[in-house]
């Protein structure tokens, strides 16, 4: 990994990004994953034009009806069209996690690289604080903030970005430690480069691979957290369609109307599986072992 990055210094070049994409797409898991993810992204963008019904339009004459020509997937307990709601049920989730993931990787990554390079007392203390945050289950930390500040998008994005950036600090720091003792960093130091320039020109290109894999995995975990929160009633507020919320609502009626559960389950699962397959292929393409990551 280090050799590769050494020869292609500045791994963020468009040529390399394209080569990486081709590499991912040429693996079976990557091809399936990329297809699923791009399909979902397209749906999130264009679903308002595709959906046959208004997602919040209720119909008291057709509640919990079975799939038919008028309602392809039936209706829910308020007579809303399940197909329309499922098509649009991922928009909020993708918006929130799509913003929160890069922010989390960015701040966690930069802080991790900085302290991996700086070391010393402050680094020791910071790592203890990071450990302390990781000791607490994610749902406890997030719920405390959400209950206090409300459940809107403007609370969820910073909350997710903050808590999911903390483990990234640790990953980036460890990856920095692997390269910081190598000759080219010492050479840059000897040349008198500033710490910032060493971070940007020597460390970042080498840590970038790890951060990309980490980002892809964080994305799927964030989606999991987001949909779990909505399922528990702490995420998106009704009537906005969201898969987690839809599953929670439809659960009470699933004995005689299972489509209300099955449609959002399929949609959510296909997105998360797609992201994970892509992350797997990305990790393999970059030569990083993913199996050693535990669910934190």
């Amino acid at each position: 990994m280090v050799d590769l990055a050494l020869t292609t210094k500045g791994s963020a070049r468009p040529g390399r990004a394209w080569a990486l994409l081709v590499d991912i797409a040429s693996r079976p898991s990557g091809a399936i994953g990329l297809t699923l993810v791009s399909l979902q992204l397209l749906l999130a963008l264009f679903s308002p034009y595709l959906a046959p019904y208004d997602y919040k339009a209720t119909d008291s004459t057709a509640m919990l009806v079975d799939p038919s020509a008028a309602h392809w997937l039936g209706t829910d307990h308020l007579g809303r069209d399940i197909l329309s709601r499922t098509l649009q049920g991922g928009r909020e989730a993708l918006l929130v996690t799509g913003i929160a993931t890069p922010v989390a990787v960015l701040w966690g990554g930069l802080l991790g690289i900085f302290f991996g390079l700086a070391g010393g007392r402050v680094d020791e203390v910071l790592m203890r604080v990071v450990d302390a945050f990781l000791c607490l289950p994610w749902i406890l930390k997030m719920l405390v903030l959400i209950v206090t500040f409300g459940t809107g998008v403007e609370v969820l994005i910073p909350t997710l970005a903050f808590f999911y950036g903390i483990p990234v600090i640790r990953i980036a720091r460890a990856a920095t430690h692997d390269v910081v003792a190598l000759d080219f960093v010492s050479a840059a130091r000897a040349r008198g480069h500033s710490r910032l320039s060493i971070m940007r020109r020597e460390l970042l290109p080498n840590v970038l691979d790890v951060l990309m894999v980490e980002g892809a995995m964080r994305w799927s975990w964030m989606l999991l957290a987001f949909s779990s929160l909505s399922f528990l009633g702490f995420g998106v507020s009704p009537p906005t369609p969201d898969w987690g919320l839809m599953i929670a609502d439809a659960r009470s009626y699933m004995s005689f109307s299972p489509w209300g559960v099955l449609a959002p389950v399929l949609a959510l699962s296909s997105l998360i599986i797609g992201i994970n397959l892509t992350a797997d292929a990305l990790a393999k393409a970059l030569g990083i072992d993913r199996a050693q990551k535990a669910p934190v």
Partner: protein
Amino acid sequence: MFRMFLRRLGLGLATIAIVSVIIFVGIEVLPGDACTAFLEREAKGKLLENCRAGLGLDRPAAERYVSWAIAALQGDFGVSANGQERIADLVGARLGNSLLLAFCALALGVPLAVLLGVIAGLWRDRPLDLVVSTGAILAMTIPEFVSATLLILVFSVWLGWLPGIVLTPADAPLWDFFPEILLPVIVLAMVMTAHILRMVRTSMIEVLSSDYVQMATLKGVPYWTMVFRHALPNALLPAINVVALTIAWLLGGVVVVEVVFNYPGLGRMMVDSISDRDLPVVQAIAIILAAVYVGVNLSADLLSMVANPRLRTAHARR
């Protein structure tokens, strides 16, 4: 080795101490306290002052932290803001229930994970491995509430084999939870199994390609003797830490599963107390979970050191 263990122990205790400070500061900084939660709309003027004085909330924060920490070390977490019950009693029964859930999931998940991981590792990239590995990805990525809902739909609603919801009260004896506990255990075991089996598979593949296993094969050691005597013990070592992390995840991350199945464990109590803003209870649960996390990881480190002499030197520090 003993000195290294002491060092880890010290770090662990320091971590718990930092957690307690983080929680305390967090609760202090966020708007609202136990009294505003308890009095709700009447929380103003004289009534609020009296309540705060009654609970000792008018003292300086540092002083309250010290007295809380000293009491907590003795197992006394104070009283809950809402019911005015002793938190230690409230949490005790719930912790037992969560431990039962975790133990059953482990008892099912770990052996299954080792078996499947070894199979996948031995038949790497063959159809059997593809099935197991794909299944693992599915099991570990699908959110727990989704797999739980699907299992309830199939096994409880359609087939009617297992109860889909737990109705046993929190303080019932543990054996009363059977068979209601089975579906939640299966959901948890699925996720755990997936994580552990991926680790076992990776290290199995690594060990199988190592020199000493090649040597054993060349010497003419029978295949299965090579697998069980030479490869397996070393392949299982890295799994110890993953198991520890999943146990910690089990105790905290099962919140969703407990809510879905209405299981009276620590996780559901946590959600309830956060919604009610019952801060003393939240504080107690957070500390307990952090302590379990640290304790489990510490035991895993110790176990790895006992099992693997290479980890006993100072170089092996992670």
